[in-house]
């Protein structure tokens, strides 16, 4: 074939920086705090298309809350949120170390993303159902789920609430509005839509909230979830936590190079908000907006929470092999804990001393829980009865499982 055109070439997206490079975030278009309008909760999606490409921010560089999205939270709520974020980080640090000490097989931190699960966990009630990924541990912590129970799960010990069956961090806490975590990415998002459909079907007042990472939006389940949410006007909040990285793949590989993840909502006819995920107040305000919308039977909202995965993907990951080592420090949206702390100090409600005290208190809480859990046992030192391995496959006994259990001799 002869044509006067250049041969085609395949484009494979590449991140702005690799190991050894200087982090470069110049391509990011970040709105300043207060710049984005807040539409009425009953706005039609088509009236707010621009929000999918903007960035809702409340806290400015001085830690002052500005603009129409300022949720005007009282100091007690802010302090509660800050303490939960501090506790989440302290928990992560200890469990990451516990892995290095051989006390568990696996762990995943949420460093830099604490504001998201903590704020959203505080806004919605335990009656609403959260369909988390493995990086929303802040939800459990914000709701006061016992740290020792989380650790028992991580250690798969005799007191593990899910009986040693699941990989560490795949929590399940129904009473805390925390759906059982699956290793299969994206599956929980259309399930959240189904849960919300059931609530609407029953004429209930509960809503569902789900999370998915930037990488997993490429799964078909994400498309199915948005379709069903729109078709049946399901009362659900569909969060996309864009932390820029899916293990070693930057968000461009998931389709984030050409558009924003929030904008994916537009084609489904769903309203989209794109929010500074490191800004506790912006996360709060956007979630509250979506909650009110869902609760008043106006359907689902997609929220892209723009943040940065500060830690390795997991204890099995070494990010220095695929991204600049100091990229997190250079992240232009900063650290959610530092930013909320600055805000409380600016309000005259907090101090560096109180911060140090809160951090010490969090370390102490985690240490105490750690001692209690480790007294039961860490991985391999303690575990539920082997008999329980054969239980809960079905609601009732199955002869094959009875025979196999006997074969094991339990």
């Amino acid at each position, binding site marked *: 074939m002869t044509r006067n055109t250049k041969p085609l070439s395949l484009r494979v997206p590449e991140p702005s920086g690799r190991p050894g490079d200087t982090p470069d975030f110049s391509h990011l278009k970040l709105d300043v705090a207060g710049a984005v309008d807040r539409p009425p909760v009953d706005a039609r999606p088509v009236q707010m298309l621009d929000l999918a490409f903007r960035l809702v921010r409340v806290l400015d560089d001085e830690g002052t809350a500005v603009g129409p999205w300022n949720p005007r939270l009282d100091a007690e709520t802010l302090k509660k949120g800050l303490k939960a974020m501090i506790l989440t980080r302290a928990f992560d640090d200890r469990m990451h170390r516990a892995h290095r000490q051989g006390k568990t097989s696996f762990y995943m931190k949420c460093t830099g993303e604490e504001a998201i699960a903590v704020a959203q966990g505080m806004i919605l009630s335990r009656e609403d159902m959260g369909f988390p990924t493995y990086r929303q541990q802040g939800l459990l912590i914000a709701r006061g789920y016992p740290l020792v129970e989380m650790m028992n799960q991580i250690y798969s010990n005799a007191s593990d609430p899910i009986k040693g*069956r699941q990989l560490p961090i795949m929590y399940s806490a129904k009473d805390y509005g925390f759906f059982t975590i699956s290793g299969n990415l994206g599956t929980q998002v259309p399930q959240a*839509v*189904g849960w919300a459909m*059931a609530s609407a079907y029953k004429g209930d007042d509960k809503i569902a909230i789900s999370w998915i990472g930037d990488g997993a939006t490429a799964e078909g389940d994400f498309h199915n*979830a948005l379709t*069903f949410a729109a*078709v049946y006007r399901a009362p659900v909040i569909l969060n996309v936590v864009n932390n820029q990285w899916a293990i070693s793949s930057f968000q461009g590989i998931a389709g984030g190079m050409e558009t924003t993840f929030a904008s994916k909502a537009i084609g489904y006819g769903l309203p989209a908000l794109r929010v500074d995920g490191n800004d506790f107040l912006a996360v709060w305000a956007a979630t509250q907006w979506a909650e009110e919308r869902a609760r008043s039977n106006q359907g689902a909202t997609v929220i892209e929470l723009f943040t940065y995965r500060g830690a390795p993907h997991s204890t099995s990951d070494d990010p220095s092999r695929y991204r600049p080592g100091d990229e997190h420090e250079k992240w232009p949206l900063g650290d959610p804990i530092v930013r909320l702390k600055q805000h409380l100090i600016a309000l005259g409600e907090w101090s560096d001393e109180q911060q140090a005290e809160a951090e010490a208190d969090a370390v102490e809480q985690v240490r105490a829980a750690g001692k209690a859990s480790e007294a039961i046992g860490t991985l391999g030192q303690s575990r539920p009865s082997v008999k329980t391995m054969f239980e809960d496959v079905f609601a009732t006994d199955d002869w*094959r499982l009875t025979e196999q259990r006997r074969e094991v001799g339990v």
Partner: protein
Amino acid sequence: MTEQTFTDADRADGIEPDMVDQTHAPASEAPEAPAVAPMNMIQALNSAIDVKMAEDPNVLSFGEDAGYFGGVFRVTDKLQEKHGLTRSFDAPISECGIVAAAIGMGAYGIRPVVEIQFADYIYPAYDQIVSEAAKMRYRSGGQFTSPITIRSPYGGGIFGGQTHSQSPEALFTHIAGLKVVIPSNPYDAKGLLTAAIEDDDPVVFFEPKRLYNGPFDGWHQNPVSPWKTQELAQVPTGKYSIPLGKARVMREGNDVTVLAYGSMVWVSLAGADHAGVDAEVIDLRSLVPLDIETIEASVKKTGRCVIVHEAPKTSGYGGELSALVQERCFYHLEAPVTRVAGWDTPYPHAFEWEYFPGPQRVSDALKSVMAGGR
């Protein structure tokens, strides 16, 4: 080929809804006894969902074309009209979305009965069924469950070609946490579907579409008779259920045990007649849980076993049945356990009757087993 083309043709073989005379049910003989009416399998399945919806507000039904239109095979016919738009509704063409939504609903605490239009199209939902529904009770320590029923027409013999004929049951029997049920007649279809809906675990319910309108024995040159002439088409109009995990002995015999399910039950009966062998034909009805006691007792009595299924032979459920029989009845066996199954090819169109395991092949297998094996 459109779905409607052959369903209309099939329906002509069976009982049209207006042919069912509800007043002739034998209820008048005994006022306390439940009313009985002749039903084809479609009507029996429809009745099961209808009765459960009337009884339990937590039961709802949805799927592609399953709402207003009542399903391409009419199994959900008139449910929307009777029970309302939010209880029997149409779904987007997204098998993954349908099953995922059902799982979410089940986790909430209601009992969705969803339809996958053809078993051949269940694969987009496979991750949701295998990774989520099947494992939910286990992985959450019993906190969350999946009391959902996934209905799907399956099986061949209808010139459905590659994607309207498959029998994928082995892909589900292999999964811990799933129940797999396949009825072979209207009476069982209603009773088993009722039990599936009431079951607290996820049930994959495959409906042999070849049997929707009448029993089919595989002698495809012969005219097909409608269900109404069959005893098993006399279906109570009220509620009843058949426990999962109980096989039905369709024909008692002493020479050889035939294990079958779905359309192959009728093919096996015809095959036994053709061979003139005193075969005991067992309809398994549910593959998981499996009625191992009935199987074991029968093979110990007969000393021989032939397994018949439409699905391809390799790694089909017949392999599991064969292994179980060999493990449990080894010292009673007088011939190798034999499988009659679909070939290890995709399901073809033009070679329908060379592929579909018919009564001739069953008959040959029975004679061979009676002669001591291959």
